[in-house]
């Protein structure tokens, strides 16, 4: 440690030398020292305060302490106890004491002594003072352009330090920098050349105007904003299931694109639902309150999780807008800032009106507590039509049913008899052949022993079970695992008359997709086809299937059973929720199938869903002779003979092809049946009766269509206001402790008070205050974050904390000027509006300060290694999404589409293996969605896409306003080996060969210019030529390798190119995509 301290005290000498020239400033010089070393025991937290001494308030510090000594006597350091104690050499007296593990440097002690000598003036903490627009300093002409007030502030400070700003960066560097910063994509070579050759005085302004007008600008800003508001596509706790959130992301995109005033933007997110006559847009914005981490883990405590959610909103809202770390006040008064526990809970109370649940289900009637559907006009119209058609069909069925009373009574009798005779029992079939179309290996287990490791739920508790027994007709898929697959299974049912076919998916622990499918998060059986042949060799005759039925358990709306026989290859039946099940699909034949001993039935199970690998892993087929057999229960616990909670079973379970509730109702005289029993029987009759069948089938088809349409309509979590829950201060954050005081919504006391005339303050009041001129924080906090985007570091470095433990800004006046300008533009204000984000960004990037070269001189390296004085620009690696987007853009793979559902680029198999509820496997997107910008990548909170994670994208479990920027070997592995980068290199190579001309030199020049906006040097050309030569030899010797490399990724391979040549060029372009310069913004 000693070596490090040496360096750091050396640094503080440098920093201090700057401050010694002026009077000691409390905020600049004293508060940071005291906050770090004194306030823990002598600060705002009364429970931690020692010796009754408080140093953060002047009046307190001038009063005699418990021992009668006066801590600070203004102007008299010799009489001030704190000076005596900090300079003391007695280990029992010295402050800070040894146990604190804090020490003051000699310089720090001297600074405090001088400050006391100068009268010990206090200042309120800088960021808590109202924002006043400081005068723009006059700077004598040092030959560097002053393009706007930013330059004046920066250069005035540099002049004081005796430093000079750097000259403007060269045009190639500048356009790459500003294009990457504003849009997250590199400039095209044409754009570079245009700018380089544009002699007009406003050449750069034109570039900036063009970039700010681009939707790409909105995508880039959205990326930053989503980190702050912890946007993700999944809920973050436990099963980390998907949540309906992306329309909120699109709201943010539109807001930045349209340059929505930041005050409106703020209001809509925090309280869009409370704005009078709220628009759909404003309601969507209110998803901000709902996209936090939530749980649906069984056994969680409602109250505990409501406490967690409330605390999250306080932390996030404070982090995003106020730049305050309020998290610690959940348990105790803040140690360094005047934020009290009460302030934390008073803030939480603003959000107590949000309709939600601790255990927030993702399905069913209470799903997500409140959501909003966002149909297009056409969808809304179609939905209304379908609703009407469903109603009509229901009416028709009811009327017809009513006319068949006598038939119904006869049917009841028949049903009882059939049940007793066992005629409704499903008969599992023993296949003699099973083959796949695309390579999956199918094995039949009839008498063969099959080991199963499965999941049972008994009395609400789940556990694993293992059995080893004859498969009794189970077909097991293994081996190659294609995205889509068709299983053809043949069996001889023996002589008989068959009314229905059953398909049962069997669960097993080895299957990643819901324990049922070989991939994805479900299986999707897109089509079932059946044929009857007189014998094994004879041609088949199609068996028409008219009705598909299941017990409905765990089906997503887009995967209803009828979708398995609708002739549409992209829709299908599937199960994506629920545990411990072997889902069973009952398919009714249009006409009974007559078979002899030689007859063969062939069943084709198609899996053609765009959801990749949603293929069933284990399947059994069954037939029924009854009219009609209800689908098997398929509950693993029931099958295993374990005690289950009968109330939990749909229809009370199923016995021998009849639902238990129907059986019970049958036994009761019609007159004595309950309404529910009558209804159960009636519904079962409607389902079973031949005369009703056409009407019933029609209704089922309509319902399936409606359900599919509903699944297509985007849905988003929104905030809905209900009567506010009671909010209490939770002592030490303990949610079980109800002894705390009840609090009403209020802003932190030290920042003022809302005037509502006695009315309970709402989220809208909070939002209005956040963006009011009375609030000193929001403007400063946001411009400080913007500054970081364009210089790599904020003006105050600690972006999430502008409180006293944050950093005194490098340029406080500039920060205040920007904040004032943000709230009320005055400089080149034409065409701007208050809270104008684009105006601030434009002002920043037009400044000379921004345009400077990043080249470091030895003097600057020594004087200002962290570039806090801004005598130059900074080089830094671009963000994770931008790393990805650069490769796609340079190669030409990038598909630009503004907004829409999140997409799933390639991801290593098994990366989600540690997820469960449900157990699932990633299903890569198809086609164009493989090549979208990183901002649209599916954000899985507990397992973020590994490429994004490797380049420091945050999980967004919590508000993040400052991503780290690391440099690790895993990043090298990603850029070298992640298939998207390899594919990009190949497509880049194809384009290079086709476009650049026949010589290698021309190709290298072209490719280099695409990626970096400049031509290679001779050295660079030589290095790449060598690589090309070596690689060409290698591939010529093993052309299979070349072929193999070209098959990476799904973009088409240009067949007109020689594989060996293309592969070698791919290696070269891959090297270019891997360069540090390629992923660096300079």
């Amino acid at each position, binding site marked *: 440690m000693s070596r*490090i301290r040496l360096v*750091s005290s050396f640094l503080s000498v440098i920093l201090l030398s700057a401050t010694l020239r002026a009077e000691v400033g409390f905020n600049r010089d004293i508060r940071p020292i005291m906050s770090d070393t004194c306030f823990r025991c002598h600060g705002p937290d009364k429970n931690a305060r020692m010796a009754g001494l408080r140093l953060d308030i002047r009046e307190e510090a001038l009063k005699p302490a418990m021992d009668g000594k006066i801590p600070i006597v203004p102007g008299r350091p010799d009489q001030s106890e704190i000076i005596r104690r900090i300079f003391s050499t007695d280990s029992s007296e010295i402050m800070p004491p040894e146990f604190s593990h804090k020490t003051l440097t000699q310089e720090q002690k001297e600074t405090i002594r001088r400050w006391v000598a100068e009268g010990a003036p206090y200042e309120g903490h800088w960021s808590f003072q109202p924002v006043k627009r400081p005068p723009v300093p006059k700077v004598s002409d040092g030959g560097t352009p002053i393009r706007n007030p930013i330059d004046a502030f920066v250069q005035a400070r540099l002049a004081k330090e005796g430093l000079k700003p750097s000259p403007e960066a060269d045009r190639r560097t500048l356009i790459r920098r500003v294009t990457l910063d504003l849009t997250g994509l590199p400039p095209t070579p044409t754009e570079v050349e245009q700018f380089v050759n544009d002699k007009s005085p406003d050449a750069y302004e034109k570039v900036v105007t063009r970039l700010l007008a681009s939707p790409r600008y909105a995508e880039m800003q959205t990326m930053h904003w989503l980190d702050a508001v912890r946007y993700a596509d999944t809920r973050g706790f436990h099963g980390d299931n998907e949540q309906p959130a992306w329309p909120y992301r699109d709201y943010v995109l539109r807001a930045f694109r349209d340059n929505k005033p930041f005050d409106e933007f703020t209001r809509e997110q925090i309280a869009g639902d409370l704005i009078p006559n709220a628009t759909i847009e404003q309601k969507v914005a209110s998803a901000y309150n709902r996209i936090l981490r939530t749980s649906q883990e069984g056994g969680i405590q409602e109250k505990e999780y409501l406490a967690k959610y409330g605390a999250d909103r306080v932390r996030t809202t404070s982090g995003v807008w106020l730049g305050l770390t309020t998290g610690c006040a959940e348990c105790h008064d803040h140690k360094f800032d005047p934020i009290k526990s009460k302030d934390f809970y008073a803030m939480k109370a603003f959000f107590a009106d949000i309709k939600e649940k601790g255990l927030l289900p993702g399905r069913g009637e209470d799903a997500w507590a409140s959501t909003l559907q966002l149909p297009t006009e056409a969808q809304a119209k179609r939905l209304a039509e379908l609703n009407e058609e469903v109603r009509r069909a229901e009416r028709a069925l009811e009327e017809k049913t009513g006319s068949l009373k006598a038939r119904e009574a006869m049917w009841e009798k028949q049903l009882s008899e059939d049940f007793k005779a066992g005629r409704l029992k499903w008969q599992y079939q023993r296949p003699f052949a099973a083959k796949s179309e695309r390579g999956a290996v199918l094995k039949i287990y009839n008498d063969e022993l099959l080991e199963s490791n499965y999941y049972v739920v008994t*009395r609400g*508790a789940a556990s694993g079970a293992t059995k080893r027994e004859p498969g009794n007709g189970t077909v097991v898929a293994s081996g190659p695992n294609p995205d889509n697959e068709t299983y053809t299974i043949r069996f001889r049912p023996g002589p008989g008359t068959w009314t229905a076919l059953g398909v049962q998916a069997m669960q097993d622990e080895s299957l990643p997709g819901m324990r049922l499918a070989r991939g994805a998060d479900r299986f999707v059986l897109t089509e079932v086809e059946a044929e009857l042949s007189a014998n094994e060799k004879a041609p088949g005759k199609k068996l028409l299937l008219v009705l598909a039925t299941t017990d409905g358990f765990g089906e997503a709306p887009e995967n209803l059973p009828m979708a398995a026989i609708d002739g549409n290859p992209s829709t299908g039946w599937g199960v994506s929720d629920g545990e411990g099940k072997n889902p069973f699909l009952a398919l009714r034949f249009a006409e009974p199938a007559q078979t002899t001993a030689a007859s063969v039935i062939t069943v084709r199970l198609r899996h053609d869903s765009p959801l990749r690998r949603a293929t069933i892993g284990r399947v059994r087929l069954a037939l029924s002779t009854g009219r009609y057999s209800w689908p098997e229960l398929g509950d693993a616990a029931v099958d295993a003979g374990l005690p289950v909670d009968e109330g939990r079973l749909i229809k009370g379970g199923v016995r021998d092809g009849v639902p238990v509730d129907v059986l019970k109702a049958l036994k009761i005289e019609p007159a004595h049946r309950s309404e529910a029993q009558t209804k159960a029987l009636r519904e079962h009759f409607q389902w079973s009766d031949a005369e009703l069948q056409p009407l019933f089938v029609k209704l089922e088809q309509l319902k399936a269509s409606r359900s599919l349409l509903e699944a297509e309509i985007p849905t988003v979590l929104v905030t809905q206001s209900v009567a506010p829950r009671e909010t209490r201060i939770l002592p030490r954050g303990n949610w079980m402790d109800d002894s705390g005081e009840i609090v009403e919504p209020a802003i932190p006391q030290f920042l003022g008070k809302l005037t509502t005339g006695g009315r309970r303050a709402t989220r809208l009041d909070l939002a209005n205050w956040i963006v009011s001129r009375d609030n000193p924080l929001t403007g400063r906090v946001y411009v400080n974050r913007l500054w970081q985007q364009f210089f790599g570091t904020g003006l105050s470095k600690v972006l999430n904390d502008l409180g006293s433990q944050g950093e005194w800004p490098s340029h406080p006046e500039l920060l205040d000027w920007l904040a004032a300008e943000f709230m009320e533009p005055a400089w080149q204000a034409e065409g701007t509006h208050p809270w104008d984000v684009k105006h601030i960004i434009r002002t920043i990037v037009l400044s000379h300060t921004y345009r400077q070269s990043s080249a470091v001189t030895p003097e600057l390296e020594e004087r200002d290694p962290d570039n806090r004085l801004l005598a130059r620009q900074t080089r830094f690696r671009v963000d994770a999404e931008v790393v990805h987007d650069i490769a796609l853009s340079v190669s030409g793979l990038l598909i630009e589409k503004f907004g829409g559902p999140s997409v799933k680029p390639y991801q290593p198999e098994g990366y989600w293996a540690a997820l469960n509820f449900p157990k699932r496997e990633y299903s890569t997107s198809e086609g164009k969605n493989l090549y979208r910008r990183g901002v649209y990548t599916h954000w899985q909170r507990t397992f973020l896409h590994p490429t994004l994670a490797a380049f420091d994208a945050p999980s967004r479990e919590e508000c993040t306003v400052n991503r780290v920027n690391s440099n690790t070997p895993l990043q*090298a592995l990603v850029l070298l080996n992640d298939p998207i980068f390899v594919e990009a290199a190949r497509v880049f190579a194809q384009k290079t060969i086709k476009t650049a001309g026949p010589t290698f030199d021309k190709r290298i020049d072209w490719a280099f210019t695409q990626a970096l906006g400049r031509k290679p040097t001779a050295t660079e050309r030589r290095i790449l030529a060598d690589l090309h030569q070596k690689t060409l030899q290698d591939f010529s010797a093993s052309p299979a390798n070349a072929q193999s490399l070209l098959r990476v990724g799904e973009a088409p391979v240009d067949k007109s190119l020689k594989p060996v040549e293309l*592969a070698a060029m791919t*290696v070269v372009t891959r090297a270019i995509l891997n360069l540090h310069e390629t992923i660096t913004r300079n």
Partner: protein
Amino acid sequence: MDPKELAALEIRRRTFLGYGVSGLGLLALNSLINPRLFASESPATGGSKGVVNPLHFPPRAKRVIFLYQAGGPSHLETFDPKPKLAELDGKPMPESFTQGQQLAQLQGKKLICFGPQHGFKRFGKSGLEICELFPEIGSVADDICIVRSMTTEQINHDPAHTVMNTGVIIAGRPSMGSWVLYGLGSEAEDLPGFIVLISSGKGGQMQPIAARQWSSGFLPSRFQGVKFNSIGDPVLYIKNPQGIDANVQNASIQAINALNKAEYETVKDPEVLTRIAQYEMAFKMQTSVPGLMDTSKEPQHILDMYGAKPGDGSFASNCLLARRLAERGVRFIQLYHRDWDHHGGIKANIAIKARETDRATAALIKDLKQRGMLQDTLVIWGGEFGRTPMSQGGDGRDHHIKGFSFMLAGGGIKGGLVYGATDDLGYAAEQNPVSVHDFHATVLYLLGIDHRRLTVKYQGQDARLTFVFGEVVKGIVA
């Protein structure tokens, strides 16, 4: 250490590289970046390659292998014998134990005592009482310490994991492995210093585990745990793309680094040098990791000892891998073994888990011992919480945070010791309770770190693994 100091360290490193690079070839670069060069070896107190240098205390352990039994293993069927609970089996749980306390799925249900489902036996000279399902662990009884008085704060899996790993429920804090790596640095030449392996077996409800559990939080991401897969590619993207052989990959990396070096010559940005070193490290990992993960060349008697079949991804195989990683200087190795969540069918299911873990756990301890490594390797066995003495559904147990057991061995741990105790029914830690913070403080202590002094500035606080809590449990230290 505050950011300024961190920055200073970084600057020093960069300056050093800046001077060194011009006259040296690419191959030399890596050794320049090797953190060993920055460690002053001071064997008296023990030097370190991380920020804690010299160490605060003489270290008793150099590395940690944490056998994390995820899902919440029942202490009542592993390490905490409760004859009294057996007597009360089927009777109502005395209210004095449970009133006003937090339960998970049993909240509001009738609470019935559920006796231990398996017997206990005494093992070793020390006579430690351990469930008879774990005879192999019993065979090393004199080397292990059982802590029977663990407590934690969170009763649901996900937050409880986060507390066990980071000390806090709020996401975004570094995990213990990251702290340790940050404090001590890595000794591994071509491997990450913090490696995670995950296995699952049968017989339980498989709870998910989030990547957050090995996150570096607000520490730089080079301190994060890297998950190694025991099936498939051991590290994400470690394999060359299809069609790229070792020659082409090597030539590519050489070319990339040569081009990057050319860039460095122009811009003198030390970040470029780091990039070069990382490509070299990546290539080294590509060469070394697959071999390291291939246990098929281990002698048969070692494979048998663990009960490992090469490439099966089992807990046993991971234990063997853990030893191999430890041998190569990996600082913190965390093995998650899943499916301990026994809400139902605990009697049969915990026997399955015992079969999966008993032999391999004991084998790891024996194997480390025979290699002379146990003395400086801390082995930890435990999960995020324990299970209720009350039954759930008649044959299972619910989550429980008031008292549960951990097993520790090696690295400064007193062998043959039982530390702390729960009450007669195994409900609450009664004697010498050990909180998660105490546990963290103790692990750091054994590694030579004062948990109060390993800090980093974050959100205005001198953040530390143990927050503002934590007492070293000296009673278990040899």
